[in-house]
């Protein structure tokens, strides 16, 4: 286990603008320059997982798994519409308002 890091260029390179587009996140040229090598170094560290033989190992999605959690299909009280809409940046006529989607 090691607590200090090399400052050499990482082996992994990632396409930050492409990933940011997938994540609907605008990034500045400065952020692209910073995130690329930082995430590259994290991926270099992650690579050590490849040393392990994982054939036949089942994945764990939840450490303590519960299956088929169901409840009665009954109508219950929900939060008032007004309370929810008041937290939105823009609402009108009982609806969320967004910029025009279709011309």
């Amino acid at each position, binding site marked *: 286990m090691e607590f200090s890091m090399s400052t050499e260029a990482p082996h992994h390179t990632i396409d930050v603008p492409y990933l940011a587009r997938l994540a*609907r996140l605008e990034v500045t040229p400065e952020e692209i320059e910073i*995130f690329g090598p930082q995430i590259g170094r994290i991926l270099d560290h992650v690579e*050590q*997982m490849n040393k392990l033989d994982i054939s036949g190992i089942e994945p764990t999605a939840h450490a303590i798994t519960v299956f088929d959690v169901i409840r009665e299909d009954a109508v219950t009280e929900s939060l008032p519409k007004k309370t929810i809409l008041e937290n939105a940046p823009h609402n009108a006529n009982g609806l969320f308002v967004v910029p025009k989607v279709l011309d």
Partner: protein
Amino acid sequence: MSAFTPYQSIAATRRLLRSKEISPVELLEGLEQRIATADSSIGAYIARDLEAAKNEAVTADLSKPLGGIPIGIKDAISVAGQPLQSASRILDGYTAPYDATAVAHLRAAGAIPFGRMNMDEFAMGSSTENSAFHPTRNPWDLNRIPGGSSGGSAAAVASGTALATLGSDTGGSIRQPAALCGCVGLKPTYGRVSRYGLIAFASSLDQIGPLTSTVEDSGILLNAMAGKDPHDSTSLELPDEDFTAEIGRDLKGLRIGVPKEYFVDGMEPCVRASVDAAVKQLVSLGAEPVEISLPHTEYAVAVYYIIATAEASANLARFDGVRYGRRSPEAKDLLSLYEKTRAEGFGREVKRRIILGTYVLSSGYYDAYYLRAQKVRTLIRRDFDQAFTKVDAIVSPTSPETAFRLGEKTDDPLKMYLADIFTIATNLAGICGLSLPCGFSNRDGVDLPVGLQLLGRPFGESRLLRIGHAYEQSTDWHKRRPGLIS
């Protein structure tokens, strides 16, 4: 009538309230005065509403287990009618429309939620430097960080500005700040406490838990919060349990596992020495030490930062400028509304993790990263399963080092992540963990707290608290207070 005294435990305060030596309103006023004096240099609080709390205090039912006890709440946890931001700009102006189930349970037990505690934005960080509001400082040395992400929750307890607080722990976010500030932090077993009303970071890892000044207090709070919740399908139906029931029993016959992978070179020498001494102390109290191995420990950071960022990138997709919080005034169309709102609203660490999480889930990389990490997670979980066939609890340092300086690691995220090495495997395995004070390390002339971590089997909190309490009561570490604040 007596005045409010900082650092009083919940158990002791409850006695004073019931014997009418102090009223709930006087308690709140005393606390507010303490906050006004001590918190200006620490910054544990983001916001608080004294009048609202006093209104609740007037009608507090002192016969209830937490009647009239104020509890500070991490800014990721909903309290109806109070601001909720997860310390992020993207939730500017947001007011929680309902109580988190954990908070509702505390209220039902008579507690008064008082104060929003600072944190790393969306619980992403180990230093509370990623808060959009302000950094929180360590009460033992104001040039140092309090740990994170529940840094405000820990610093408040450690500076006597809160009796107890709630935090959340995804990879150590309760235990690590508790260790670095010198208080007690409990991460319950996954599924023990409902996550409903906790702003999700990584849903398969997140768990709400208490930060307190004594081990017993953490049991008292868990008693109030634990239980199945129809709003959280991962919370579990378990028999009622008094988590303080084993407290006071001795440690004879208990086996304590010492994992060789957690005692390695590279640790701060004084942390190592303090934890070694704590193991000896546990043995002198009757516990039997057993050397164990958790062979996949070295992979925990890698697995964690894939699974946690993948889940975060999905969970944080909801912050899009449409339904809550802020919206970019620059938005021209729907796409730019998303992209600009998120660019303006999220801080740098959050953006970095969203991009990493998006990468590991993206087409062509899923199997190599996310699926592989989930399989290694299975191996990490098995390590603990095997260890717990031999031992009742596992002992280790909470963090390989004491509090670092503000700004020391902000430019090197991987270095920051690696400091989580002893806490993150707990969340991957879903087990419970406790951190409590076990010594001090002198750095630059200042004594900084060292944390001892005790890990227990799933749903083994009662045993863990018994061991923690026995250790705590046999030492004086928990009685020491930072000298900086009077």
